[in-house]
């Protein structure tokens, strides 16, 4: 368990500062992605959009919307990766707010359900 000092426990983080928040990061494998946009339509936070321009192979690859520098809307729920038919989406980093909202008994690494 993580023990935070009183000052860190009490401070409410600034939601739009990269140093105080850890938003999720999703990566899109541009080789496998077909640009169907199912992830954009399913995202609970509406935090994804397709690129404006087509890339070299004529596809529009999704990307994370940034509301402030280094700040996305992703909460690492994984809905997009479950919905993707091609398996092109991976969650690279989970969501964790800083200071007051910091999770105490979770680790940042993510795993699939394990059959014990």
């Amino acid at each position, binding site marked *: 368990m993580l023990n935070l000092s009183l000052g860190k426990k009490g401070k*409410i983080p*600034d939601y739009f500062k990269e140093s105080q928040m850890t938003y999720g990061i999703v990566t899109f494998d541009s080789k496998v992605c077909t640009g169907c946009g199912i992830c954009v339509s399913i995202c609970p*936070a509406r935090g994804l959009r397709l690129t404006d321009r087509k890339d070299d192979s004529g596809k529009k690859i999704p990307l994370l919307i940034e509301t402030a520098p280094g700040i996305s809307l992703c909460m690492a729920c*994984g*809905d997009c*990766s*479950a919905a993707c038919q091609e398996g092109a989406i991976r969650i690279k980093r989970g969501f964790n707010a800083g200071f007051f909202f910091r*999770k105490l008994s*979770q680790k940042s690494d993510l795993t699939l*359900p394990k059959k014990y």
Partner: protein
Amino acid sequence: MAKKTTNNLSPLYTYQEGMEWNPVEKVIMERRSIRNFKKEPVGDNLIRRILEAGRFAPTAGNAQPWKFIVIKDQALIAEMEKATVTLSKFLMWFVDYNRNAFRRIFLAPYTKFLTRLMPNKLHPIPFNLLQQIAAEKAAAYHKAPVMILLLIDKRGIGDPALDAGICGQNMVLAAHSLGLGSCWIGMITVLMMNPFWRRKLGVMSPYELTDCIVLGWPKGDYDGEVEREVQLVEWIDADGVKRIERLGV
């Protein structure tokens, strides 16, 4: 990512180490919240079957502190959606400090003070969602064909909200196992701040409404296992020996 692969599910009521999921576990692991629904209506008896799963949920002291309201009126749901947008615009005007430099300097301390008072309501995730709804980029009710309002009887035993939560999850899992998609919507709290909507939906004391479930046939296949955070679990074994284990690795 992991898609639905197993057809060789384990039978119920047995356990061997490392065996495949049984049907119940499979539904639990592969349930994803669905926010994309077909327009197709859901049959009344199917809804009744799902409500039945909720009726038999465990509650403290068998209090069953709930009341269900099923909404199938699309016009009403559209109206609720519109009202939610209006209300979130109103609320965000007071707290959104990410709009301009002036707000960042003068509004941020005030919003942080409010966050301390209502940490659950102004947590970054609902804050961002409210912002998105106010900007009309995200939907609150996802044009679902059916909505089940899960009213809590405040006079229940212990923590009635917890009982209602168990009841709701029973319904969600039952719905999922029947092929329907579902999603918990907590954003209805915004609507419940307005007495007009409380009266309109019949949410009167001793009942209160904090969560609802939307149901419908999913447009596409969204189910599958996802990655979740590794948990540090504390075990207290015999003789008070403590150890911390990483769960899920």
